[in-house]
């Protein structure tokens, strides 16, 4: 039995110390205020008893200040748009990969994974060059006369200027997270028994009907997994908004960063973090449940 305690105990203790404890500390900070040099303590020993001073000023600021509220909202918005885009581009991609010749599939998989292995930072940076005025994609977009559509949807502010806009942010995030959507979808679609489609055809369904009534529902697990793998990190994204986003694209990741690094207001940053965690707690629970179920199924 001693071996078992060690095997479970070591990673468990590590996670408790470096994952759980920090969250409690963040919580602690979030209800304190910034003193002149360092955050004030919420504990104080007064007359032999521990006195707790919880300061909610940070949370009140978040609730009251429209800026924070807007930042949370726009983070959710852009994360949702990115997820939908990843799904729209990624699903057909994964589908045709899974239906390709069996000998071809490992090579296709490798080609999808290859960009993932190269630095994501560099690839986001590459989009700066592509979307700058005169960059390849910028020129392509102008040639395709998409400016009107982009201006209307509020994706860009001025014609021809694609950098530091919601458009560049969304493209950047979609690009970065696309493999995270494709892989679970591919796994689910490749596992599907193709004979089910034959049965459907035999019973009178057209390929289109069979796709929507059989293939899509069966790949539901992949859709959920992929969506969670994209949506949740996107909400708190920092690097892409920083490099590709602009003044219009308020993302909560940047707000948190600025509170911490620029304002040096650790309690404020912590409060922002706590609210962010609360925002993603529901999708996080969904993701966790999916993971647990996937493991049960493969037992």
């Amino acid at each position: 039995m001693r071996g078992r305690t060690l095997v479970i105990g070591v990673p468990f203790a590590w996670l408790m110390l470096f994952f759980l404890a920090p969250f409690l500390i963040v919580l602690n900070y979030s209800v304190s205020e910034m003193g002149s040099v360092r955050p004030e303590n919420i504990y104080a020993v007064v007359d032999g008893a521990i006195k707790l001073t919880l300061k909610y000023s940070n949370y009140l600021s978040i609730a009251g200040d429209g800026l924070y509220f807007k930042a949370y909202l726009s983070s959710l918005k852009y994360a949702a748009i990115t997820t939908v885009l990843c799904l729209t581009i990624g699903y057909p991609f994964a589908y045709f990969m899974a239906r390709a010749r069996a000998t071809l599939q490992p090579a296709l998989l490798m080609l999808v994974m290859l960009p993932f292995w190269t630095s994501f930072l560099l690839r986001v940076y590459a989009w700066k060059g592509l979307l700058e005025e005169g960059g390849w994609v910028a020129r392509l977009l102008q040639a395709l006369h998409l400016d009107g559509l982009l201006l209307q949807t509020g994706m860009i502010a001025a014609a021809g200027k694609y950098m530091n806009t919601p458009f560049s942010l969304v493209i950047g995030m979609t690009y970065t997270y696309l493999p995270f959507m494709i892989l679970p979808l591919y796994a689910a679609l490749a596992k599907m028994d193709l004979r089910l489609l034959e049965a459907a055809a035999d019973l009178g369904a057209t390929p289109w009907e069979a796709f929507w009534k059989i293939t899509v529902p069966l790949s539901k697990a992949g859709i959920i997994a992929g969506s969670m793998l994209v949506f949740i990190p996107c909400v708190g994204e920092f690097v892409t908004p920083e490099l590709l986003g602009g003044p219009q694209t308020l993302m909560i990741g940047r707000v948190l960063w600025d509170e911490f690094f620029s304002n040096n207001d650790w309690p404020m940053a912590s409060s922002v973090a706590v609210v962010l965690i609360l925002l993603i707690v529901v999708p996080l629970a969904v993701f966790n449940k999916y993971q647990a179920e996937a493991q049960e199924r493969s037992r």
Partner: protein
Amino acid sequence: MSTRRALFSPSFAIGFGRGWLTAGFVFLYLPILTLVIYSFNKSPLPTVWGGFTLDWYVKLASDQEMLGGLWLSLQIAFMSATTSVVLGCLAAFSLVKYSRFTGRTLFNGMVNAPLVMPEVIVGLSLLLLLVALQSVFGARGMMTIWLGHVLLGMSYATVVVQARLQDMNPQLEEAAMDLGARPHQVFLLVTLPLISQALASAWLLTFSLSLDDVVVSAFLSGPGSTTMPLVIFSRARLGLNPSVNAVATVIIAIVAVFVTVASVLIARAERRRAEEVNAALRANP
């Protein structure tokens, strides 16, 4: 068979599929391609082609800041990959072998959460912990970055090893015990060789994640411990910079060669194995 006309004929579907895949791959690889191409651009602006040059690579060779960052990143990546794999292995074993233990749901949640949690949260919370325990962990630097990377890497390693363990025939370990191997011998002689490929890919995965990390490193680094991604990030923030292109091309080249060679070797080994299995089945029913 259906008497209604199908909306899409098979040939259309194939053509559409090929088109979509091609467009998708173009989308995935275009940025990488432009990085490489413009690393040879004489002009520092990516919008103007000034002629072919290797200047930026020459400059890279003497770029102390970048090279220093690279060396630091490699060290951290090596340490965090190794630690992540060890911890991930233990966690994977716990989840697969022991179906019931106190706190299993919590454990499972903690192991999976870093996979999706926004890095700003991970970075901030870990930093606050390390500051509170400064007497134990010392000032921010290489060690603190290592801790942050291990936290992220452990989740990925667990997922990879867990998948392999679940696929493994449990009777193999039972057979080993039946033949007289004690639990630690079972692990060393049977389990470990069988999961070795998963361990290797987990190591490589966590290595590249560590090498590439920006946010957690930013929160946890201190003076004198600037990793390569942080160097690149600070330069990229200021604008376009061909030195970044040069570094990018070098990294891309290394990764591309490595992944392609590995894939080819693995594919060849798989094919050989399949042939051997078929030969055995044909020769002796």
